[in-house]
């Protein structure tokens, strides 16, 4: 029971991070109907920018942890969203209306480019970071096993929940949210009634990148090591989460993220750690076979 509870906590933490990345996939898919393969790389860049920001803050002597965390959060979101914006502008916007495979291939090219860009600039070696948020408390004890909840896990879950709620509010209350939803339903029509479609799409990428940056920051704190290749697996899993929840659906992405996180944690705990990634992809294939619309998605009807 205690062991189960511990894995539940670990899984929720992991799932919160996947959920944040999955939102970027699902929103972009919703609005322009393409899989943004480079999104995993955006998350990786977010992790690197947070990492560098921590080192810079350490060097100039900002050591009060809450302040450092807040600054890094803002800095990472800001710079990473510029990357998200640029990727859309350079690699996707010129291809609207091109043939079907073009944006996909362009996205893969972008993903390879960004990976090697970071590798060349920051080196290929794994980068360790000294733990920044330490400590925690035991919430339950029994059977020789104590359930431990670290402050970091609390921070991750709280920050993620708050951001998702904020994002939800933005989408449902603001004019950007209305424009975004209008573009999801019908881009041409939205353009005709005066929605600036280009700007809405750009902002969607910016928002997705900002959330991915937060995920990157959380991972940097959680695992303490990053390298230029982390975007690949995390991107795949977050995409799986988006598909599981129903691609195009925002609550679906959050739900899918949490489910994938839980599955991964429990698989590692009760089965084979080596095959935990296989489990995630296996789920992706199973979902696609039996319920391609995902848990909360709407069926996609192609009209001629």
């Amino acid at each position, binding site marked *: 029971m205690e062991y189960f509870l511990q894995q539940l906590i670990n899984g929720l933490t992991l799932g919160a991070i996947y959920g944040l990345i999955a939102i970027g996939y699902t929103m972009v898919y919703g609005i322009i109907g*393409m*899989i943004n*393969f480079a999104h995993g790389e955006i998350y990786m*860049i977010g992790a*690197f*920018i947070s*990492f*560098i920001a921590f*080192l*810079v803050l350490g*060097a100039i002597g900002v050591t009060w942890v809450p302040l450092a965390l807040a600054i890094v959060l803002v800095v990472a979101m800001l*710079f990473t969203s*510029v990357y998200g*914006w*640029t990727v859309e502008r*350079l*690699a996707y916007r*010129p*291809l609207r209306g*091109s*043939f*079907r*495979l*073009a944006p*996909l*291939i*362009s996205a*893969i*090219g*972008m993903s*390879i*480019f960004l*990976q*090697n860009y*970071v590798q*060349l*600039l*920051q*080196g290929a*070696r794994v*980068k*360790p*970071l000294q733990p920044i948020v330490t400590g925690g408390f035991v919430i339950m004890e029994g059977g020789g096993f104590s359930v431990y909840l670290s402050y970091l896990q609390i921070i991750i879950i709280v920050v993620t929940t708050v951001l998702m709620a904020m994002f939800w509010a933005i989408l449902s209350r603001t004019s950007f949210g209305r424009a975004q939803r209008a573009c999801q339903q019908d881009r041409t029509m939205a353009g005709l009634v005066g929605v600036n479609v280009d700007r809405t799409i750009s902002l969607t990428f910016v928002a997705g990148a900002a959330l991915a940056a937060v995920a990157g920051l959380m991972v940097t704190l959680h695992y303490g090591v990053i390298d230029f290749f982390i975007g690949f697996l995390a991107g*795949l899993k977050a*995409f799986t989460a988006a598909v599981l929840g129903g691609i195009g659906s925002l609550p679906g992405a959050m739900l899918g993220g949490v489910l994938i996180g839980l599955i991964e944690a429990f698989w590692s705990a009760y089965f*084979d750690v*080596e*095959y935990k*990634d*296989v489990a995630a*992809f*296996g789920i*992706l*294939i199973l979902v*696609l*076979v039996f319920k*391609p619309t995902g848990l909360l998605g709407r069926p*996609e009807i*192609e009209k*001629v």
Partner: protein
Amino acid sequence: MSARAGSPDFPGILRDSGLVALVALFLAFPLVGFHTIDQGGGAGMGIETRFPWVVVAVAAAFVGRFLQLALLRTHAPVAVERSLSRLGEVFQRNTVWIAAAAITFAIVLPMLPFADRRLVDLATLVLTYVMLGWGLNIVVGLAGLLDLGYVAFYAVGAYSFALFALHFDFTFWMALPIAGLFAAAFGVLLGFPVLRLRGDYLAIVTLGFGEIIRIILLNWYPVTRGPNGISDIPRPSFFGLEFTRRPAEGEVAFHEFFGLEYSGLHRIVFLYYLILALALITNLFTLRIRRLPIGRAWEALREDEIACRTLGINPTNTKLSAFAIGAMFGGFAGSFFAARQGFISPESFTFVESALILAVVVLGGMGSQVGVVIAAIILVGLPEWFRDLQEYRMLVFGGAMVAIMVWRPRGLIAHRDPTVRLGVPQRPEPSA
């Protein structure tokens, strides 16, 4: 866009370039401006600044954008476009001659005076990618299915040869068809569930599948020997003649049979001709199948799936056949790879490899057979020859893939006539 007509609008251009430079500043500042360094000795990570690089990047962005707007908005791109298209047309018209010349050159290459061991080895490597490119071209170029896990089939082919050789003493020639069949079976196994879905899903599922295969190869220790890989894979023989200095008891070696002096080069040249033959078979197969109903169905499906369905083409089965055949050629190439290296490990089958094969297909112009050869020479041959370029290779590929899609999505020198040209209607259409 007022710059297009008459004299360029300089204030507008300057403002635009300034904005681009500002974006470049934001992009470059965190990742170029700071460099993390490992201080060693438990001191943790340190950081150093590289601000001059940021200045260079921002200046380059400004000047680049300025030149692009001020100069290239005039006539240059149109002229370049037209000449590339004309080059493609010339290529197209003389395909037979170019192909014949290229094949002749490929056949005599090992006999040329400058062909040393290194060159023939490199040519073998390039040809392996040509074959993989042609195999993947069936899937991506003809059927329009984006396969990001092609390396998985390559791995299946390599491992099935290695394991059959290890456990059942199969020779290369016995294992080759089996490797192809295994790879095709994996293709069907994977394709069956996902080919009914939209194309984007296929891409990501194949990506995941490639990783699954690699993880299994890495961890299924009793069978695959995990990260240690499988060594001592038997080398292919020339109709039963081994390429060894001292053949086993009762066997005849290649050099003895032909009364030659033993030379290590024999095997290398033989491997070169082997992959040349395999690649040409792949090419011939593709060229012929394009004319068959199934090949036409692939291309039609790529263009419009719904129209195909109304015409009675079963999309799932048609795609599945393309997927399986592409996988089969990947399997053949894989067993050749295993035979050439004599050693395989999961290291050789990473996503980078899939990306490289895809880059060969995309940059050559999807569906173009000659393009694959040119792209393989440029992407595989050049970096291998100039080792210094290796570091930047993938960076350039990624950038080039984006640029090609934005600028000339059908490939650099693509000029493709339709496979079937419908006759111009003889009678004028009745006007409605």
